[in-house]
C-alpha cells in the first residue's frame, strides 16, 4: 500500500511569484513546456512513478486549461477508485476569502482532503517544478530519519532569484535557515507527517500564517525534526518568462534530457495522437527539439517546437519556443521569440527578443 498522498499547488499563490505574461491565460502548472508537456506533468509523473496515487491539486485561478489537461487523470493512471486525482478548487469559507490570498490559505481549504486521506505522510509540492524526482527514495529517507518534516533541496544557487538557504547538521537535520550565501536551495517540496501537518494547520489558522516554507518549516526548526533531502539531477522551478525560457533551452543539453526523460521513469502527459513530424525538401534543422504533428520546411536553430507547428519555406528561426499550432509563414525571421498557442506569424515578418528578455507573443495573435 502507498505510504503517502500528495497536494500540488497549481500556482505559487502570491509567494515568490512575479507578475509575468506567462500566467495571463493559465495557471503556471498548465504552462506548456518542452515541446509536448505542461509543467505539472513533471511532478505528477514523479508522484505516480513513485507509487503515489492520491493527489489533490489546489487551484487558484485560470485553472480551466489545467482541468482540461488533467481531465480525470487517465494519462497518468490517476483514474483510481481509491484515491486518484482530485481538484481542490477555491470555495467560500467563513473567515477566509473565497480565493486564497496565499499558499497557507489554500492549504487550509484542503483540510478535509488531508484528513480523509488514508496515508500517514503528505507530500506538498508545486506544479511549476521541472524535475524527475524519485519519491520512494525521499520517503525512505524521511522514515529512516524519523523526520516530522523533510525539505527537498538542490546544491547551488542556480534556481530562481530568492534561494532560501539552510544549514544542516551532518545527519541532514536542518538547524538553521538564512537568506544568504550557502550552497543549498529549497525546492519548496516538503514531506510532512500527516499529524504534524494537521497540528500546523491549526496554528496557521489561529496565527494567520502566510507561507508554507517560512511559517510551517523554518519557524518550527526547534519544535519539530526537520530534515533536508538532496535532489540530484536536473531540477528547476519556473516562475517567470526568463526562467521559463532558460528551462526550455536547457532541454537542448543531452545530459538534461537523459536525466529527465530517459531514466527508469518516464514523464507522462496527455496523449494527443498527432502523426509524426514531416521534414520537407528545404528544411534545415540544428540543435532543436521537435514534437509530433509538425511540418518543417524552414530553418530551425536552438528551438523548442511543440505539436502541430508549421514552419514554411524560407522562414529562419533561432532560439525560439513555438507552442502548439503556431504557424510561421514563408521567409519570416524570428529570434528569441516565444509564441503561445495558435499564433500566426505572417510571411516575411521579423521579430526579435533577447535571450535575457525573450519576446512573448500571446495566444492566438496574428502578426
Amino acid at each position, binding site marked *: 500500500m502507498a505510504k503517502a498522498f500528495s497536494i500540488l499547488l497549481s500556482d505559487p499563490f502570491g509567494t515568490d511569484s512575479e507578475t509575468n505574461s506567462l500566467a495571463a491565460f493559465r495557471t503556471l502548472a498548465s504552462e506548456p513546456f*518542452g*515541446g*509536448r*508537456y505542461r509543467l505539472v506533468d513533471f511532478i505528477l509523473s514523479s508522484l505516480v512513478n513513485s507509487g503515489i496515487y492520491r493527489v489533490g491539486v489546489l487551484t487558484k485561478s485560470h485553472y480551466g486549461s489545467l482541468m482540461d489537461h488533467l481531465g480525470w487523470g*487517465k*494519462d497518468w493512471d490517476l483514474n483510481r477508485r481509491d484515491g486518484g486525482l482530485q481538484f481542490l478548487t477555491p470555495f467560500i469559507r467563513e473567515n477566509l476569502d473565497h480565493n486564497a490570498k496565499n499558499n497557507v490559505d489554500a492549504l487550509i481549504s484542503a483540510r478535509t482532503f488531508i484528513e480523509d486521506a488514508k496515508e500517514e505522510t503528505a507530500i506538498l509540492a508545486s506544479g511549476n517544478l521541472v524535475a524527475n524526482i524519485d519519491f520512494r527514495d525521499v520517503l525512505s529517507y524521511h522514515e529512516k530519519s524519523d523526520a516530522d518534516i523533510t525539505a527537498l533541496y538542490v546544491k547551488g544557487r542556480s534556481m530562481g532569484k530568492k534561494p532560501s538557504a539552510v544549514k544542516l547538521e551532518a545527519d541532514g537535520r536542518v538547524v538553521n535557515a538564512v537568506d544568504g550565501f550557502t550552497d543549498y536551495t529549497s525546492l519548496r517540496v516538503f514531506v510532512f507527517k500527516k499529524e504534524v501537518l494537521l497540528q500546523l494547520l491549526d496554528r496557521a489558522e489561529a496565527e494567520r500564517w502566510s507561507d508554507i516554507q517560512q511559517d510551517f518549516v523554518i519557524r518550527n526548526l526547534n519544535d519539530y525534526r526537520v530534515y533536508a533531502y538532496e535532489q540530484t539531477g536536473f531540477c528547476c522551478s519556473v516562475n517567470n518568462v526568463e526562467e521559463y525560457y532558460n528551462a526550455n533551452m536547457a*532541454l*537542448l543539453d*543531452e545530459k538534461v*534530457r537523459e536525466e*529527465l*526523460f530517459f531514466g527508469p521513469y*518516464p*514523464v*507522462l*502527459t496527455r*496523449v494527443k*495522437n*498527432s*502523426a*509524426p*513530424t*514531416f*521534414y*520537407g*525538401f528545404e*528544411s*534545415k*534543422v*540544428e*540543435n*532543436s*527539439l*521537435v*514534437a*509530433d*504533428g509538425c511540418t518543417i520546411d524552414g530553418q*530551425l536553430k536552438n528551438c*523548442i*517546437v*511543440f505539436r*502541430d507547428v508549421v514552419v514554411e519555406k524560407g522562414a529562419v528561426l533561432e532560439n525560439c519556443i513555438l507552442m502548439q499550432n503556431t504557424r510561421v509563414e514563408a521567409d519570416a525571421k524570428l529570434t528569441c521569440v516565444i509564441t503561445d498557442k495558435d499564433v500566426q506569424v505572417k510571411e516575411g515578418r521579423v521579430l526579435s527578443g533577447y535571450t535575457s528578455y525573450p519576446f512573448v507573443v500571446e495566444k492566438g495573435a496574428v502578426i
Partner: protein
Amino acid sequence: MKAKKELIAMLLAGGQGSRLYVLTQEMAKPAVPFGGKYRIIDFPLSNCVNSGIDTVGVLTQYRPLELNTYIGNGQPWDLDRVGGGVAVLPPYMTEKAGEWYKGTANAIYQNINFIEQYDPEYVLILSGDHIYKMDYAAMLARHKEAEADATIAVLNVPLEEASRFGIMNTDAEGRIFEFEEKPKNPKSTKASMGVYIFTWAKLKAYLVADEQNPDSSNDFGKNIIPNMLNAGEKLVAYDFDGYWKDVGTIESLWEANMDLINKDSGLKLNDPDWRIYARNTSYPPHFVGSNAKVTESVISEGCSIDGNLWYTVLFSGARIEGDAELNSAVIMQNAVVKKGATVKYAIIAQDAVIEEGAVVGASPEDCEKPEDWGIAVVGRGAVVKKGQVVGPKEMIPPGTGREEA
C-alpha cells in the same frame, strides 16, 4: 445484462502474414509497426472509434502475445467501455473438443456467443491487414438504405491489377451478381477490401450451415459470400474512394511507409477530424543535432538524430548517430544506426542495431540486374556487426548476432 448494440465489429487478427517473413516471425501481422508510431491494427480500431463503434471483438490466433499486450484494455482507442469496448477472442476448448480457428468464417462462428451478448442488428467484419481511413457509419447507412443482407466495401483498382483481387461484378444499382476471386479476365475493377457488413440474423444462419459442410474452407471469400449469392440474398457494393493499401508483403509495407512522405499518395495521417490512435510511448519530442541533415522524412517522438536522412521514416525512440547515411529507410522503434553506417531501401525492425560502418540494402540503381534488387530487412533485436554488409533483398532473422547476456 449487456446493453443492446445496433452494430458490433469483429476484427480478424489471427493471420500469420507469412509474406512479411522475419517481421512476423515473432508477432501477428496486425501488430507489425507502421508509419512512425502506429501498428497496423491501429487503423481498423481507430476507424471503428471514429465511426462511433464502441464494441470490437479482436480474434487472435497466431503469436498473440505482442498483439494482446498492445491492445490491453483498449484505453488508447477509447475502447475501455462500461458496456462493450474491446475484447480479445482467442480460440478455446469446449467440453467436447476445442479447435483452432479453421478459417475466417469459422472464427466468427466460434464466437457467436460473444456476438449475441449484444443482440446486434448488424455485424461488421474487418481484417488487420490494411492501411486506410474509412467511415464505417456511412457504409452502414448504405447497407440499411439498400436493405441488403450483406454490404461489401469495394475499391476501384486499375484494370491491369484487378486480377490480383477478389472482384465484385455489380449492376447499375451496385447490387453484386457475381464474385470472382483473382479472375484472369476481370469484368470489373471493383476489388473487395475485406470489409463486410452483414445483417446478423442472416450471417448467423449461413455460418451455422457452412459449419455443417465438412468440405468447406469456412472462409468468407470462398464460402460464405458465394453461398449467399447463389441463394439469391441481396449483396451490395459500397464504393470506397481514398487511400487503401494491403501491407501484406515487405515491398508493400515499405511502400506504404514511403507514402507518408510522398504528398501525392493520398495518405494523410495528421487529420484532426480522423485521428489514428496508438498506444503512447511516453517519449519526449525528438532531437535533431547540430550536424544532422533531415530531408523529406517523417520523424516520431523520442528519436535522436545526428546523421543524414533522406526519404526516411523514423519510429519512436530510434537513434541515428553522426555520419550515418539513410535513404528510403524505415527504422522501427528504438532501433539504432551507429556512426558511419549506411541504410538504403531497407526496413530495420524494433531494437535492431546497425553497428559502425555497416551497410544494409542498396539503391535499385546500384544493382546490375533489376531482379537482384529488393528491400533488405533486419529483424527485431538483430545486430548487424561493424563493417558487415547486408545486401538488397537479404533478411536477417530476429535476434541474430545479439550477445547473450
